[in-house]
């Protein structure tokens, strides 16, 4: 499978739907909870056991993104998307076999291990290609794709629920649902494999447009840093801290949103019902998704550093407002939580463009993959802080909003740490820049020309 170079006249607006077809599919991971209750009753599992495929999937996402990033850069987005398609779909098919035969380990292996590799490779596969197609609007381009990861659960959650309602919630019904998921996602993701193209080099033979074409873009210049060099720079680790703190703060609310809003207003004249709490969780998902496209597009206008100042600074302020006045006003609580969740999504979506600004496009996908290890830590840290603190406060006889006061103070502290780390980010020193040897550069040039004009 050769590098899919775009033919003349290929529109760059075909690349975001290619990326979305992958991200909307793998975003299904966040809807795993739909399968938990039926699996628990069909296979006699505990809640901890039924969470295992999802947890392993997220671990594999981080590991495969971190270690597979350079492979993705070397082999291109089409091969990467193919691997993502095969792994993600076969994960469901293996799980279908596991559910049909009552072998839970097959579900853990299939959805968690094999499918998790698909999550990681799929997540990073279109990032560097999008940045190369949209050097003028990298934030918007990666925002569209990464918004898809948030949107995937919105689609999968009702879809999977309806499927289980139709097929039944026993082993046979779950197996059938897994089978349909695997097949449909394979077809859906194939659009990405077929449409993805990398931009071709401008050749001397290319006719120059008489006027600036609608889709002509400025030449991408700036530093070019390899993935191995990037992780030796303080900029990478500062950004790692920024992402980790921002994600931790967002997950802190996201993970416990329903019980949190119920606890906050339990002692008031307007308590929150179970269905209203579910509506609040859905609203947070919408804010998370809107933040991905909205804030990352804004970063193209105001700059990456400034937008992270907003995420971390205003995020801390929002936590402060919730901690001080959250239980006095439901609209204030909801608005602050929505803003925090929009910053959470925005942080994910803006980081590839921030990496591109700092390290260039040379191996930005691989660098992004390594940075996502911050997500893995935050995924543990955020829920751990909120749950441990709430449990400790409950044991101390507290209730309502006071269960969360300390964890919100910790979140504010973490956001301040992230803010300081963002302030410490400076342009990368030229000694880290990648300088291709003259012979390698000539080989690369020859390779591109041969692929575009095969003999």
């Amino acid at each position: 499978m050769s590098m899919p170079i775009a033919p003349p006249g290929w529109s760059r607006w075909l690349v975001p739907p290619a990326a979305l077809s992958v991200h909307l599919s793998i975003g299904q991971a966040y809807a795993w909870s739909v399968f938990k209750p039926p699996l628990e009753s069909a296979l006699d599992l505990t809640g901890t056991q039924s969470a295992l495929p999802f947890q392993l999937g997220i671990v594999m996402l981080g590991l495969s993104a971190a270690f597979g990033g350079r492979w993705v850069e070397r082999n291109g987005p089409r091969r990467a998307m193919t691997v993502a398609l095969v792994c993600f779909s076969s994960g469901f098919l293996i799980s279908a076999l596991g559910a049909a035969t009552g072998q839970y380990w097959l579900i853990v292996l299939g959805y968690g291990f094999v499918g998790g590799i698909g999550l990681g490779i799929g997540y990073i596969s279109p990032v560097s290609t999008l940045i190369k197609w949209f050097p003028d609007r990298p934030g918007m381009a990666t925002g569209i794709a990464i918004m898809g990861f948030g949107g995937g659960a919105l689609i999968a959650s009702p879809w999977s629920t309806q499927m289980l309602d139709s097929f039944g919630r026993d082993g046979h019904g779950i197996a059938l649902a897994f089978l349909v998921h695997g097949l449909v996602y394979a077809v859906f993701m194939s659009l990405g494999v077929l449409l993805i193209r990398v931009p071709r080099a401008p050749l001397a033979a290319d006719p120059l447009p008489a006027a600036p074409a609608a889709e002509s873009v400025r030449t991408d210049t700036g530093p070019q840093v390899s993935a191995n060099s990037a992780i030796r720079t303080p900029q990478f680790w500062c950004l790692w801290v920024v992402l980790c703190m921002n994600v931790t703060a967002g997950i802190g609310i996201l993970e416990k949103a329903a019980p949190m809003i119920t606890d906050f207003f339990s002692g008031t004249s307007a308590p929150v019902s179970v269905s209203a709490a579910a509506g609040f969780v859905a609203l947070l998902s919408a804010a998370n998704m809107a933040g991905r496209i909205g804030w990352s597009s804004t970063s193209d206008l105001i700059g990456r550093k400034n937008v992270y100042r907003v995420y971390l600074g205003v995020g801390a302020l929002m936590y402060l407002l919730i901690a001080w006045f959250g239980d006095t006003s439901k609209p204030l609580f909801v608005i602050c939580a929505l803003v925090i969740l929009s910053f959470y999504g925005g942080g994910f979506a803006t980081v590839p463009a921030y990496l591109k600004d700092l390290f260039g496009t040379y191996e930005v996908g691989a660098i992004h993959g390594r940075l996502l290890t911050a997500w893995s830590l935050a995924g543990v840290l955020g829920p751990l802080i909120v749950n441990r603190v709430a449990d400790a406060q409950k044991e101390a006889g507290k209730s309502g909003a006071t269960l969360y006061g300390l964890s919100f103070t910790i979140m504010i502290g973490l956001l301040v740490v992230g803010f300081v780390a963002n302030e410490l980010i400076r342009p990368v020193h030229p000694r880290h820049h990648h300088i291709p040897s003259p012979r390698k550069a000539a080989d690369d040039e020859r390779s591109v020309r041969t692929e575009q004009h095969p003999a």
Partner: protein
Amino acid sequence: MTSEASVPSSTPPDRRRVPLILFAWLWVGAPLAYGLYELVLKVRQLFTG
């Protein structure tokens, strides 16, 4: 990505690709619209539940 160009081509986009662009966006837009519709139904519970 060693054999990949670093800048998009300056060639203007081919108008014959417009139907393909529409199809591709519909392919991803339709399920997303379904997800958003289901989301709006749930969000209403916050105000009515």
